[in-house]
């Protein structure tokens, strides 16, 4: 599967949201896609055993965990997810999921080593994490060297930390916006000033795209699935507001956690699992559903899932969460495209501000409002 082009289909002036058309040798699709991540891949493996259909999404992202005990990146499962993605004709991307602490201490020596390691593992899209304090000048030098070790079919993918030094971020990002096909950003808390300012710079650059322009595909990575400090709005939606085209939330790797925490996670009851609600555009728990709707929606949903579907209750919820968020994105894309019509300039903005409570609250409190 070869990535051929990414073109701007339409930019909505009111929201700054952009629709991009992505063309590969196998398929063509629009942006705003929730990628298959490690946990959804596990679900799909189970579904395959039961001969059940898989998710209809052309992007698969593998988050490479860091094993604290061995102090090394863990490539177990990497080959399997890659070959699965190839079979499913998906654009496959793998990257090292760094914690904020790891970003703080990341140097070019380490970043270059990690890049070289991945370059030799048969990846088409090879991630290169850019240390937080890099300037454009230092990055350009490193970038030049890095490209030399890639073969003709490989593409360098710069990975930023959303907490990159504000003073240098815009220059490097804009440079990459002009020169890269794919750009990744590992996103941390939106309430953090550096993150917010950098994300706004991404949005401002992205919304300058005009119909027909070549554009890079922006990968929003490692953010929190549920934005708990922002009324439980979906992380996918929150980060897509800043221009990200393909989204993959932070993966939880139990091996690195204290035993007590692991026990807690594994003993979670249905009432404690958050479910995406399309009416809200965010997540809630059974107690909230019962209070407002008089019904435990999560439980009701599980009663309708057949065991033969091959998923555990927790996985069934994940599966449904994925599908419903993607459906919401598809609807949003239609509204954004509609704004090309003269009498429908407001339709995407109206949809966000009036149809889904959590989307509306996020938009009104975090995104700059037009006067």
């Amino acid at each position, binding site marked *: 599967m070869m990535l051929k082009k990414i073109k701007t289909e339409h930019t909505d002036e009111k929201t700054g949201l952009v629709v991009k058309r992505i063309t590969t040798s196998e398929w063509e699709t629009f942006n705003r896609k929730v990628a298959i991540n490690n946990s959804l891949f596990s679900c799909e493996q189970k579904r395959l055993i039961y001969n059940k259909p898989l998710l209809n999404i052309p992007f698969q992202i593998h988050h490479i965990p860091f094993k604290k005990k061995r102090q090394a990146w863990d490539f177990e499962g990497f080959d399997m997810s890659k070959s699965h993605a190839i079979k499913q004709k998906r654009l496959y991307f793998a990257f090292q999921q760094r914690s904020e602490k790891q970003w703080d201490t990341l140097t070019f020596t380490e970043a270059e080593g990690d890049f070289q390691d991945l370059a030799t593992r048969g990846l088409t899209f090879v991630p290169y994490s850019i240390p937080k304090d890099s300037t454009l000048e230092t990055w350009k030098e490193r970038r030049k060297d890095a490209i030399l070790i890639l073969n003709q079919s490989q593409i360098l993918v710069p990975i930023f930390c959303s907490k990159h030094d504000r003073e240098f971020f815009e220059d490097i990002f804009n440079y990459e916006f002009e020169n890269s096909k794919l750009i990744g950003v590992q996103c941390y808390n939106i309430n953090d000033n550096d993150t917010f300012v950098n994300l706004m710079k991404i949005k401002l650059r992205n919304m300058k795209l005009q119909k027909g322009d070549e554009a890079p595909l922006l990968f929003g990575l490692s953010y929190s699935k549920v934005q708990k400090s*922002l*009324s439980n709005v979906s992380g996918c939606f929150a980060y897509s507001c800043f221009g990200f085209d393909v989204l993959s939330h932070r993966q939880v790797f139990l091996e690195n956690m204290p035993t007590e925490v692991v026990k807690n996670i594994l003993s979670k009851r249905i009432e404690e699992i958050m479910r995406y609600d399309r009416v809200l555009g965010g997540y809630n728990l059974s107690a*909230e559903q019962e209070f407002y709707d008089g019904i435990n929606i999560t439980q009701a949903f599980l009663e309708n899932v057949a065991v033969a579907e091959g998923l555990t209750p927790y996985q069934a919820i994940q599966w449904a969460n994925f599908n419903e968020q993607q459906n919401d994105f598809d609807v949003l894309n239609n509204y954004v495209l509609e704004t090309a019509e003269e009498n429908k300039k407001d339709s995407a903005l109206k949809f966000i*501000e009036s149809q889904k*409570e959590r989307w509306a*609250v996020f938009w009104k*409190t975090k995104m700059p409002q037009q006067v």
Partner: protein
Amino acid sequence: MVNPIPKWVWKRYAVIWQKFKDKPFTFEQAQKELKHLDRNLISVMFNELKNAGWIAVNLGEGDSRKRVYNLLNPLEIVESAKNDVKKN
């Protein structure tokens, strides 16, 4: 003049109307009724209600830093909407 409110605001309005009707209440009292919702969300909701003319905001008696809210009666809203239509 009153304006329409989004459906999500209407759903929350209904919960506090059931409790307070047109009696005055504070933000904290509303928060107690709107279980599971954070301050951020309730603030945006109040703002929507205020902009649409569905809620009156007054200064608290004795402590003018506090705000006291009064919901408009849904029947008054319907009447007002009818009159607005007639005027136009």
